[in-house]
C-alpha cells in the first residue's frame, strides 16, 4: 500500500490499457457479417443472373470467411483473425454436412408417407405389376424379420462366447489373432460376405436360394459387431465381482454365467440390438442369396423370399420411371428407416437404463 503513490507518475506517461485483452470484435459481429455476406451474395446473384440457391449459398460462405478474416485482422490482429476463420470454416463444414443429411431424412419422410398406410403394410406385391399402383410390403417385412431373426440366432451365441473367450480366458497368440481378425472382419464389404455364402452354400453345397442363405451372410456380418460390443461391456465388469465370486469357491464358468454376464447384460443387449439394426438394412447379400419374390413365402429354408431393403432396390431398379413404383420404394424406405431407428433408440434406451452406476 505504501508503494502505491510512487509509480503513479510513471503510469501517467504510458497510456494505460483499459483491459489486459486486446481489442475484440463485438459479440454480434459474426451475425452481422453473415447477414451482410448473404445480402451481398444475393445482390451479386441478381447482377450476374444466377438463381441457384446452392451457388448463392456457396458465394455467401466464401464472402463470410473472407470478410471475417479481413475485419478481424484489422481490429484484433492476425492470430485472432485466423482463429475466427477456423471457427467459421468449422461452422461451414457443419452446415455443409447437415444439408444432405437433413434432405435425406426430409425427402424420405415426405415421399414415404404418400402410400404408407395399413393396406401397404399388410399386403404383398402378388399379382401387382410394377407399373400399377397398390400392393404392399407385407411379404418383404416378413422376409426381413425371418432372415434377421435367424441371423441373430446364429450370430449372437458365437459372438458372445468369443467375447467371453477374449476377455475371460484369452491370452497368447490365439486371442491376439482372434482380436485382430474380428477387427478386420468388421470391415468386410457386405457383398463379399454374400459372395462367400454364394460360393460355399449355393455353388459348392448346391443349396437353393433361400432366406436362410441370406441369414448366413447376415450372421457373418453381425458376428464381429457383437464380439466387439460384448467385449467392451465385459471389460467394464469390475474385477472385484469376479474375485469375490471365485473366493467363495464358485467355479469360473458359473462365475461368468451368474456374475459377469448378468452384470453386463444391459450393455450386451444394446450391442446386439445395434448389430441387428445394422444388418436389417443390408441389401447386397440378400440380393445375391435370397433372390426376392413378389409373393408371401413364410418358409425361410426353401425358395426365394423377399426382404425390405431388397424390395426398395427392386422397386427402384426394375421399374424405372414409373411413379407408382417410386412411391412404393420411398414408403418401404421410410418403413426401413423407422425400424432401424426404433431399434437404435430402444438399444440406447436400454443402455441408459441399465448403465452401470
Amino acid at each position, binding site marked *: 500500500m505504501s508503494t502505491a503513490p510512487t509509480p503513479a507518475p510513471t503510469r501517467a506517461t504510458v497510456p494505460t490499457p483499459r483491459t489486459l485483452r486486446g481489442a475484440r470484435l463485438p459479440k454480434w459481429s459474426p451475425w452481422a457479417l453473415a447477414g451482410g455476406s448473404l445480402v451481398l451474395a444475393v445482390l451479386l446473384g441478381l447482377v450476374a443472373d444466377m438463381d441457384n440457391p446452392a451457388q448463392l449459398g456457396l458465394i455467401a460462405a466464401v464472402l463470410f470467411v473472407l470478410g471475417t478474416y479481413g475485419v478481424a485482422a484489422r481490429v484484433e490482429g492476425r492470430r485472432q483473425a485466423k*482463429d475466427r476463420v477456423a471457427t467459421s470454416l468449422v461452422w*461451414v463444414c457443419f452446415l455443409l454436412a447437415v444439408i444432405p443429411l437433413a434432405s435425406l431424412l426430409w*425427402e424420405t419422410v415426405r415421399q414415404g408417407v404418400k402410400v404408407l398406410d395399413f393396406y401397404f403394410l399388410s399386403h404383398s406385391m402378388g399379382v401387382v405389376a410394377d407399373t400399377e399402383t397398390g400392393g404392399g410390403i407385407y411379404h418383404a417385412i416378413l422376409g426381413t424379420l425371418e432372415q434377421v431373426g435367424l441371423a441373430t440366432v446364429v450370430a449372437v451365441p458365437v459372438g458372445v462366447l468369443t467375447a467371453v473367450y477374449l476377455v475371460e480366458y484369452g491370452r497368447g497368440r490365439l486371442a491376439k489373432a482372434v482380436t485382430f481378425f474380428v477387427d478386420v472382419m468388421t*470391415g468386410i464389404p457386405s457383398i463379399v460376405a454374400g*459372395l462367400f455364402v454364394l460360393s460355399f452354400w449355393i455353388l459348392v453345397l448346391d443349396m437353393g436360394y433361400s432366406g436362410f442363405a441370406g441369414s448366413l451372410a447376415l450372421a457373418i456380418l453381425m458376428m464381429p459387431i457383437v464380439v466387439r460390443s460384448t467385449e467392451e461391456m465385459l471389460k467394464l465388469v469390475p474385477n472385484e465381482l469376479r474375485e469375490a465370486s471365485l473366493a467363495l469357491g464358485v467355479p469360473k464358468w458359473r462365475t461368468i454365467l451368474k456374475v459377469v454376464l448378468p452384470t453386463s447384460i444391459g450393455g450386451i443387449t444394446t450391442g446386439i440390438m445395434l448389430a441387428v439394426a445394422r444388418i436389417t438394412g443390408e*441389401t447386397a447379400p440378400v440380393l445375391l442369396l435370397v433372390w426376392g419374390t413378389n409373393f408371401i413365402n413364410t418358409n425361410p429354408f426353401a425358395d426365394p423370399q423377399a426382404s425390405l431393403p431388397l424390395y426398395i432396390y427392386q422397386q427402384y431398379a426394375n421399374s424405372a420411371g414409373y411413379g407408382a413404383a417410386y412411391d412404393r420404394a420411398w414408403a418401404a424406405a421410410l418403413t426401413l*428407416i423407422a425400424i432401424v431407428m426404433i431399434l437404435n433408440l430402444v438399444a440406447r434406451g436400454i443402455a441408459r437404463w441399465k448403465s452401470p452406476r
Partner: protein
Amino acid sequence: MDTTTQNTEQPPPTPPEPASAATTAEEGRAARGATRPGDRVFLGLSRGSGIFLLVIMAAIAAFLAYRASIAIGKDEGNFLTTMEWNTNVDPPVFGIAVLAFGTVISSIIAMALAVPVAVGIALFITHYSPRRVGGVLAYVIDLLAAVPSIVYGLWGALVLVPHMEGLFGWLDTYFGWTGVFEWQEGAPRSLLTVGILLAIMILPVITNVSREVFRQVPRMHEEAALALGATRWEVIRMSVLPFGRSGVISASMLGLGRALGETMAVATVLSPTFKIHASLLDPGGGTFAQNIASKFGEATETGRDALIASGLVLFVITLLVNGAARMIIARRKEYSGANA
C-alpha cells in the same frame, strides 16, 4: 521333480520346495476337481467360437479363391488389364481394369470430400458447439450412421442426381478445359456423383471415430496451450490435431473401407458402362461391388465365378485397408497410453 534334481546349486531349499508345491497342487486339484468338467466345456465352447471366427475368415478367402481360380482359368482376356466383361459368350473375356479404376476414383473423391468435413464436424462437436448442442449432434450423427445404404442409394438416385446438373454445368463451364471436368451430355450418373454420395455416406463414420479421439485429448495439453495465450484455433492446431492425427487417419481408412465396398448406393446411382472415361462427369464406369450387384441377375455359371473373382480382389483390398487402419489404432494405443 526334474528341476529339483538338476538344481545342484541350491541344495538347502530343495527339500521343502517340492513338498509344498506338491501339496498346493494337490489341494488345488482337489478344490477344482469337482468343477473341472463344466469349466472345460465352457472354455472349449468359448475358445471354439473364437476359432470358428478365424475359420470363417479363412473359409471366405479359400472359397472365393477356389471359385475365382475356376473363372480365371477360363478367362480369354487378361484378368487384370482387360477392359471388358463378357462372361456369357463362349470363350469368356473379362477383366477388372475398369472396375478397379472406378472403385479407386470414386473412393478417392469420397475421401477428399469427406475427411476435411468430418474432421470439421468432429471439432465442431468437441470444441466449438455449446455442450448441449454437441451432445445432441453426436447423437444425431450416430443415428445417421445407422441409415441403411439402400436408402442413401434411393435418395442419391432420385434427389441428388437431379440436383447435380447445376454443379456439372458449372464445372463444365469453368473447368471443362482440363478434360477431367468435361461434361458432354447425359444424366449426371457418373463417378463424381457416386463419389459425392459416398462422401455423404461415410461422413458419419469418420466423424464418430474422430470425435472419440478428439475427446480423449488430455485436458492438460489444451489448458497449457490456453494458459500460454493461444487462441482456440492454435490450441486445436498445437494440441488437438497432433494428438488425434493417427486416430483421424485410421478413421479415414475405416471410411475408405466402407466406400470401397459400398454396393447398393453405387448400383442405384451409376449408369454403368465398361469404359474408362477421362472425364469424371461422363456417365459410366463401374465399381467392383456395383458390378457384382448389377451383373449377378443375368450371370451364368461362369459369370458368377467371374464376379466372385472380382469380389476376391475387393476382399483383399478391403482387408489390407482395414488391417492397416487397425494396426495404426493398435500402435497408437501402445504409445499414447490412452485406451480407446
